[in-house]
């Protein structure tokens, strides 16, 4: 009992003390740091000091010496979604991520997020609710029964995956808190912790986003049965780079709507600001519904590269479907809207 208590209450979880992992991982990381440092060295020589400091932040003490630990979850499969889809292999799902808090390249998150601490975690559900909730890490997997849903994920960059998520519907969570009359929107916020998230420390690494990353949905979108809070994928708790310990998954919208590592869900009576929209409103709208008929100003959204099994040439280019193929469930939400205007 006493041991249990120590483990739970300690600032650094028990896995950090497993000596067996420490040396090989550290050596591995150092090698990568050196290689990266060499690659950028030539650029570094030609730029002013302040920017340079930013670059060298990249090779600083962000890398943890122990890998992020996930654990198996118990859940029931929800067969209503994703039957017959070919899954994107787990290794690809966890090593090709957009999570600018850990760097802008696709491999930065897996490289830089291994030391991410999710215990303790606090998720607050607040705003126009009857009972504001404050959930800790254990609550996230215990509060509601977990189910597995296979969803297509369509990135605004025109690539896509098929991922088995584990979690619960956002609607179920919001019902627990009780949404008050007059509420129209739901706002989400990612953890702001520059000590842990190098992209929040250095503009060079974080891609110029104003952190914390924020997202939002209309209340009817939030309550739709498809809208999902994932706490795991491939049967285990979420890896850090995929948005541990809890993230949103909105399968009919571009991936950037599916905010990661959420610490705050706020029910509101007006449309909240959203990060990519703030950064480039002519390219990224509030709705961001997957729509092959509305191109990104700089690339086509008519087709997508489906990342599946196999090697480099194994991807296939397939037609992008309106609402990412979930029109049956969500098209009615936008009945009288011009989706070219509300992109």
């Amino acid at each position, binding site marked *: 009992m006493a041991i249990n208590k120590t483990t739970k209450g300690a600032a650094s979880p028990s896995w950090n003390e497993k000596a067996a992992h420490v040396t090989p991982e550290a050596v591995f990381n150092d090698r990568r740091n050196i290689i990266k440092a060499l690659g950028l060295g030539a650029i570094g020589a030609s730029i002013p000091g302040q920017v340079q400091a930013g670059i060298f932040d990249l090779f600083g003490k962000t890398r943890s010496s122990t890998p992020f630990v996930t654990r198996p979850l118990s859940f029931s499969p929800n067969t209503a979604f994703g039957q017959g889809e070919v899954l994107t292999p787990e290794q690809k799902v966890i090593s090709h991520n957009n999570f600018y808090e850990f760097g802008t390249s696709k491999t930065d998150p897996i490289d830089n997020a291994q030391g991410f601490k999710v215990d303790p975690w606090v998720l607050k559900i607040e705003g126009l609710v009857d009972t504001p909730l404050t959930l800790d890490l254990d609550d996230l997997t215990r509060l509601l029964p977990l189910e597995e849903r296979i969803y297509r994920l369509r990135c605004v960059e025109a690539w896509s995956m098929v991922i088995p998520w584990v979690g619960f519907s956002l609607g179920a969570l919001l019902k627990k808190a009780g949404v008050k009359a007059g509420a129209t929107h739901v706002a989400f916020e990612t953890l702001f912790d520059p000590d842990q998230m190098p992209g929040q420390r250095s503009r060079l690494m974080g891609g110029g986003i104003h952190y914390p990353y924020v997202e939002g949905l209309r209340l009817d979108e939030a309550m739709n049965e498809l809208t999902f809070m994932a706490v795991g994928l491939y049967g285990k708790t979420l890896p850090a780079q995929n948005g541990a310990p809890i993230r949103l998954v909105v399968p009919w919208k571009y991936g950037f709507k599916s905010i990661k590592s959420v610490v705050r869900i706020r029910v509101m009576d007006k449309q909240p600001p959203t990060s990519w929209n703030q950064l480039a409103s002519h390219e990224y709208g509030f709705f961001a519904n997957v729509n092959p008929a509305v191109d990104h100003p700089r690339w086509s959204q008519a087709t997508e590269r489906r990342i599946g099994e196999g090697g480099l040439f194994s991807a296939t*280019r397939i037609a992008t479907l309106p609402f990412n193929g979930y029109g049956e469930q969500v098209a009615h939400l936008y009945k009288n809207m011009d989706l070219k205007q509300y992109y």
Partner: protein
Amino acid sequence: MLRLKASHVMAIKSLFHLLALLPIGYLVWTVLAGRAGGDPVQYIIHFTGMGALNALVAVLLVSPVAKRFKLGVLIQTRRLLGLYVFAYATLHICAFISLDLLFEWSLLASEVVKRPYILVGASGYVLLLLLAITSVNRVKRKMGRRWQTLHNGVYLIAILAPIHFYWSVKSEVIEPSIYLILFGALLFVRLNWRQLKKRFQVRAS
């Protein structure tokens, strides 16, 4: 003053070959070792594009360095470097067409026309292709004075390439900005101030 002999030029050329080829080896190793992530396509396209940009920086550094340090023979390494710009740009485009577009030629056509950053990059590449084709000695002799006029096109490429880079990124503009400034500086140092001044005075009087 440092004097370079023919044997030195050979050594420098070999060094440049090595420096230009090593990144390709590194890229192949990274991708095969699975260190470029679950879907290395974007990584490969970006890596080869950066290779072309860096080689172009090297090309444009040759003549200022040769002038400043009175190392005229260095000019002999310029074609080699220029052809590496072309080689990396070719890999960049091949990766885009094969790995990203998966040989959807109709999509390529519409993308080139509709997307300004691709149009800018493609224009630069066509010019680069012309320079590569006319880099052979025999063609150079045949072209006479027109050869230099055509090959001044490298300055246009030095403008198009960093714009293409800047325009293509989602939000991480710092690195492309650095390249824009760098190429701007490389073009700036080439301005012949005395001549410009003279022309200005002629017009003024």
